[in-house]
């Protein structure tokens, strides 16, 4: 693709150092592929405030968000809020401990991926983003084809209509 896709990503994690590192890593990894616009938030509540106006395609969401704000909602609750506001947004759930329960719950709430914060976390997030961007691109391509087809179909119908109209009004035209 010569035209670079623009992708808006929200990072929600209460660990600021991690967020900064992840942001830098994503920007480097995808600089040739697409234009990424990344915004970071410490809690789900802060993210939801900006969510409606920004409408990100991808949200990377940590499960534990209450280290600084004890009242902050956990990742699954935020996931639910995001999916209610915009079902098409892809959400990647991050977690520091590997748990079948969180993995299953996230799956049922239609998260797009589940990544454990291990040694290879940045790599795994890149894999995940790469697939999600591919989905977005492929769906965009399908939509573009569909629209062009509709225009062509309309054009064809118009031409047939015009031909019939000329035949009725001015039969001599075809004789």
């Amino acid at each position, binding site marked *: 693709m010569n035209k670079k896709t623009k992708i808006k990503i929200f990072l929600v994690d209460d660990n600021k150092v991690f967020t900064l590192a992840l942001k830098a890593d994503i920007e480097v990894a995808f600089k040739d592929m697409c234009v990424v616009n990344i915004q970071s938030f410490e809690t789900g509540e802060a993210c939801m405030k900006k969510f409606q106006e920004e409408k990100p395609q991808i949200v990377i969401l940590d499960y534990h968000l209450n280290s600084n704000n004890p009242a902050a909602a956990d990742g699954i609750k935020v996931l639910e809020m995001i999916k209610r506001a915009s079902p098409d947004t892809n959400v990647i759930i991050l977690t520091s401990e590997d748990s079948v329960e969180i993995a299953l719950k996230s799956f049922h709430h239609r998260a797009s991926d589940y990544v454990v914060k291990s040694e*290879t976390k940045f*790599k795994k997030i890149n894999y*995940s983003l790469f697939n999600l961007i591919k989905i977005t691109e492929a769906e965009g391509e399908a939509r573009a084809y569909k629209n062009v087809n509709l225009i062509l179909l309309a054009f064809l119908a118009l031409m047939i209509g015009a031909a019939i109209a000329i035949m009725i009004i001015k039969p001599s035209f075809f004789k």
Partner: protein
Amino acid sequence: MDNKKQINVFIIDDNKVFSLALRANIEKTFKEKSLKIYLFEIGEKCKSMFKMVIPELVILDYNLNSDHPSASNGLKVLEWIKKENSETCVIMLTSEDSVEIAVKSFQQNASDYVVKTMTQFNKINYSLKNIFKILEAKTIARKYKLQRIALLVCIAFLLGGIAAVQILSASLHK
């Protein structure tokens, strides 16, 4: 989609119990898809079948030499698969989490990298869901592409037909 296209999946893992469990899990999670799952113990054994079936998806373990000491590792098999058909999506599995394997798999165009922990099946399901979405969108795009060609041919015929009638009738009147 009403006309479901069959998706061929290869699972390559030397642990037979794991392969069987994974197959049962995938079939249960994606009941609504028409999947055909083939199991292989080592990469070498899948080669002739691969050329015949050309699977859309391969789930490939990194360590394949427990029973066959000379079996090539997952990265070599990945390289072979991508050379044979670059469209095939490959999910790499590994028992130990290693940055080196993750990076190398990514460079060889693997679609995902999954570490075998207790959530392995869940992680594979996530991965499959995303890959199926990509495959589906690609199929739809291909369908529209064909439709567009058909429409263009129709328009060309119609224009050609009108032009032919004009020329013929003009020459008849003279």
